[in-house]
């Protein structure tokens, strides 16, 4: 199994979720994060104080998939999350040693 972590734009969440669901992905976990990267933040001004917001709100999606579906899922995310402008985000893939479904105790791909 592989764990895919995708950092995407906030307003793309619905699109990515729908695209993944269409691809048969049945579960995912989403976290609010803040990103720092090439996409610069912006400057806010409160009375006399200028203040640089370096971190941009982003969404992190975590999906665990069986090895064989990795590429499809990656492609789906890339397509549905892309706008073409700086700040579209990254996808990180790592190996997973094990997965368990708490309810049933099922292990491995069965647990997804």
């Amino acid at each position, binding site marked *: 199994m592989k764990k895919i972590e995708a950092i995407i734009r906030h307003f793309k969440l619905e699109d990515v979720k729908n695209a993944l669901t269409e691809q048969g992905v049945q579960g995912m976990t989403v976290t609010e994060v803040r990103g720092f990267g090439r996409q610069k933040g912006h400057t806010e001004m*409160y*009375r*006399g104080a200028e*203040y640089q917001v370096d971190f941009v709100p982003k969404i992190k999606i975590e999906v665990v998939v069986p090895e064989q579906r990795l590429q499809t899922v990656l492609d789906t995310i890339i397509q549905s999350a892309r706008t073409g402008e700086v700040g579209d985000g990254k996808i990180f893939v790592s190996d997973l040693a094990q997965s368990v479904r708490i309810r049933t105790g099922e292990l491995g791909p069965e647990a997804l």
Partner: protein
Amino acid sequence: MKPRRRILGLGIFLLLVVTLSGWVLNSSAVAADAMAAFDDSIAAPHEVDIDTGDNAWILTSSALVLMMTGPGLALFYCGLVRKKNVLSVMMQCIFLMGVMAVVWAVLGYTLAFGGEEPWIGNLDYLLLNGVQGQWVEPSQLSQVQGDVHLIHCRGVDAVQVVPMAGSIPRLTHMLFQGMFFIITPALICGAFAERMKFSAMVLFMMLWGLLVYCPLCHWIWGGGCLTFGGEGAIAGGTLDFAGGAVVHISSGVSALICALLIGKRLGFGSEPMPPHNMTYTAIGAALLWVGWFGFNGGSALAANSLAASAFAVTHFGAAAGAIAWAGWEWILRGKPSVLGACSGLVAGLAGVTATTGYVQPIHGILIGALCASACYYACTVVKNKFGYDDSLDVFGVHGVSGIVGMTLVGVFATRAVTDPAVSGGQPLGLIEGGSIITGQLATVAIASVFSIAVTFVLLRILDTLIGLRVSEKEEIEGLDFSEHGEEGYILL
């Protein structure tokens, strides 16, 4: 440290309780004494009627002015700090509502409004004697002093005596003025937000109220040495309708001293410290606008045409202030901000405060815009130049617009609006050929110097005795937890 603090708190608290209980339980006795001490030469009490309309309006105004501190100012200020200090700011406002109210009843009112000595009030109204109602036997009636309203009781000779102030009960006057005694120190809290020790804050404010506010209030409103047209008044006295000097200059310049003596917040200048909840600040600003109608409109102490006029000046001053500040941002930075509009409306309100009973409502627009513009400059250019950390711009907003407003009274004041009993039908502001501006400028100077001096001394003393600032660790942790053991939001 902890036990030391605990002991201190205990001490103060016990002191308070003991003193108060003593005083309060003695008050009836004192009342009798006070009365016995009256001059026999006064034959019968001077009866006046209560005007229910006036009383209704001033009671309503009192409620509005309390609302300015809580939740108004509490929201306005707490939105501007970082999340970890949100409660500490609210606590300052709410606890001051409690402490200053009690201090006012016990000692403040009489220092401010007891008698007409030039420098400070006498103790006639100590513990509200001569302010609250009395049950007086006929034989003692001749000894009752001042204006009173008498309520007779069928079949009984004794009479209920209600001390009066103009057409309203003196209690109403005491209440209304007492709300000013709460908000004025509360305003200062903005200067040392996010770092001052709560215990030091409480002690400082009690002393500041008695030693700065009460004298100033007495000089200008209580028949003291700055009474307009008063005999021997300095520079002819001053027109300060609702507190340009008494409230805004006093709190504004004191705030600056606080900011300088207490020092900058850790990380000030290097770390971003954006307002954590602008929606609170905006709600607070709107409530301040609404409450200020009571502040200024109530200062007529009657529901007359002067109240209406002061109300109108207030409204247009706030409006113009909001437009001006947000307007400058729009021009100079490309975007008008909510904080700009809110700061501007407060600056406009603070600015017109001194002028409300003396100037034409339509001029309120100009005065509000001028004050807000001056404050904009002070908060963006001046403050950055000098680099002090007046965290929520108490000086930049209240101090500056207090000074500008008091000065503009000398320009715009007109007998077309001013109570003829005050103006005597003479021209007042420069525009109509009057020359009261000297008294205005003198008062600005006196109020500033006096407030600065006393504040400075007070802070130095307190710093030596108990320290003004929380520890570095506590400051990083946030005052909500370190000073009050609580958390603002648990939204997860």
